[in-house]
């Protein structure tokens, strides 16, 4: 879809970003072991092999969120997307993967094609997500994840959505990761994790 576009439009940019989030969230779930590795299957995207879940419920949930997110990206009303990983036993938030979104509404109509460079940037971000596993503390207990979206205050909350707290980590370490831009949307990535006593 985006490959055929000669330039980047708002709709194309929203789709690119939504696609990135879908694959990025899947990568995070696979890397952090939130769901068992055997429930993931390998697909090729952005010229690299990524893991995609086959769990029907999870897939359904992700498509719901991503489709709603795409709409909001088109309206430029979304500010952040956060993947919150909670320990089920202690109900503590152990990790927060935060993606800040900056929407440039003053974009000019189709900018010259930079799809390859955007793809390169997305690739490096996903590679970095994979690489962060080396320094993030192990998730030994059973964990579950949640997707939070930071939007403008005056946005109408759809039916199945509700307001929630930010689910911050108590005593966190933050690491800024790479960012990528489609000239209309800019995505900054960062990960915050609970400080363990041993580190």
């Amino acid at each position, binding site marked *: 879809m985006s490959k055929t576009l000669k330039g980047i439009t708002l709709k194309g940019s929203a789709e690119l970003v939504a696609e990135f989030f879908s694959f990025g969230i899947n990568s995070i779930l696979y890397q952090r072991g939130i769901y068992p590795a055997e429930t993931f299957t390998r697909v090729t995207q952005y010229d690299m092999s990524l893991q995609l879940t086959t769990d029907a419920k999870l897939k359904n*949930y992700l498509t719901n969120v991503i489709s709603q997110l795409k709409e909001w990206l088109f309206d430029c009303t979304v500010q*952040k997307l956060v993947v919150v990983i909670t320990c089920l036993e202690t109900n503590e938030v152990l990790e927060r993967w935060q993606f800040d979104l900056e929407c440039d509404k003053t974009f000019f109509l189709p900018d010259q094609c930079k799809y390859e460079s955007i793809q390169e940037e997305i690739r490096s971000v996903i590679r970095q997500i994979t690489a962060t596993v080396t320094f993030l503390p192990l998730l030994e207990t*059973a964990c579950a*994840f*949640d997707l939070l979206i930071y939007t403008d*205050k005056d946005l109408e909350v759809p039916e*199945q959505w509700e307001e929630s707290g930010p689910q911050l*980590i*108590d005593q966190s370490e*933050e690491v800024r990761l790479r960012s990528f831009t489609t000239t209309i949307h800019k995505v900054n990535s960062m990960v915050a994790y609970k400080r363990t006593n041993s580190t």
Partner: protein
Amino acid sequence: MDDMEDDTTIFSTLKSFKSLISCPDRSLLETEPAFGRSGLQNLYTKRVELEEAAERVRSHTNLLQLTQEKQQMELSHKRARIELEKEANSSSRDLQREIDRNRELLLQIRRLEEREEKANQALNEQMENNKALKRNFEELHKKANEKDSKLAEADQMISELKDETRRLNQQIQIQESKFSTQNLEIQALQEQLDVQRKYEFTHTQMYTIFLIPSNKCICTLERRLALQEQDSVIVKNMKSEVARLPELEREIKRLREENTFLRETKENNSLLREETEGLRRKLERMERAMEEKLKVEKPEDLSREVIQIQQRELNLKQQNYTLNSSIRSVEKARTELMPEIAQLRAKAQEEQKKRENQDSLVRRLQKRVLLLTKERDGMRAILESYDSELATSEYSPQLMLRVKEAEDMLQKVQTHNTEMEKLHCIVFVFLRQKIEELESERQQLEEQNNILEMRLERHNLQGGYDPVTTKVIHLQMNPTSIAKQQRTEEVEQLRVECQRLRDRLRKIEAGGGMTTDDTTLIIPPSQEILDLRKQMESAELKNQRLKEVFQKKIQEFRTACYVLTGYQIDITVENQYRLTSVYAEHMEDSLLFKSTGPVGSMQLLETDFSRTLTGLVDLHLFHQKSIPVFLSAVTIELFSRQTVT
């Protein structure tokens, strides 16, 4: 566990009995030699009963195994129950902890919110302070700029004043120099006056002293005047001589006119000569023509013409001669006049030169006269001043006044300068202090700003947001909430199970043995298990009864053995039999036998008591190799010992 031990002892005794029964003759003979037939019959019946019992027991081994399994299951159930209880306890504790943590977290959240609000308020206040300070700073800056401009103006004023002061100083210096020169002159003149006063003889002497130079001056003037007069006489002479000049000029004019006239006559002469030459040629031609014509024309005409021509010729010659003579005379006159003219010209030039010299002399003399008159006037003034004495001098008070005015101006300017400088210093110092304070404030505010910005950045990184502009939403049915729900459900289920198990435990403990469970376990009981349970219950009962019976019998048998053989046989360890004699002197005296092999052969083990019976051991065991004999010998020995003592 005691049941288990009893079972093992029962099994072991059963095995031993089986082994004994398997060799019935030997065992019966060895163990029960004193029995009669009735005893054998009893034994047989007992043996039959025992066999039946054994058969029963065999048939019940399966049941016992089942019971074992049941007990194991019970144990495992107990363990599971215990673990579940523990888990329930731990989960209840965790629940309580979670509740506490929840409360604490809520409190923390409230506190953090309060802190956030406070921080925001502080931020706002700081921002407002920042703005106010910036405004103040700008105002102060403006004021500083105004003051700088004022300072610049003051500086300009100062510079202008300084220029004026310089000018005034210069004027003052000039005037001072003039004053000093004049003072010097005054001093000189004073000295002169003093000198004069020193030589105060009379006015006339002063005058004469004054007059000497004046006289000298007058003498010089007179000399000059004399010279002037001489010069004037010379001038007069020269004037008279110069007066001759016009006459000479008139003569010159006359001579020039004569010259011109003579030149004209000369020209006329030349013209006339040319005419005569022309006429001569004509004559010649005429003569030729006449000669030619003479041949043709009459001689009379010719003679007349010739005569006429001759007359003309004569006239012309006369004229020529007269002209020549006149020319010669004129030339002579001219030549005579030429030197006179030269002389007169030379004289005129000399006189002109003289006149010029005289004019220059006159000018010089006139200048000299002017100077002399000025000197004379000056001397007259000096004389007048000396006349009026030096007390009142006209020009110094003016100078003094001017000097005083200049000094006053200087002082005013200096005081003004010093005041301005002081003011400037004060203002400078004040402004510098203010600027330093403002700069330090600004630095502090900048640092605070940086710190707040860093905090905001950190806040943003950690996931904080501004509740006024942003809100956080998520799907209601999200994996975490689903997982939490599942967890709570699991916990509930575990609690319920725990409760059930606890109730079952209580019932089991209250009921004792096997009771029908009203509280059904998770696994629904099948018919086989119920039957087996009933069988197990019945088997248990039977087992118990058998045990009791067996115990009784064993006890009787053992007491009988003890009484009859005189030895109490205990099985301490597997295959080891401890024999204690009835006549033993001490309680600890015992013999240990170990069973080696399945046949029933025994070996004596070393004990303290056996060491005391080494003789008997050697005799009966090593030589005779008979344990019963040995035992009886020991009994006899002990009995003999007892009875003797």
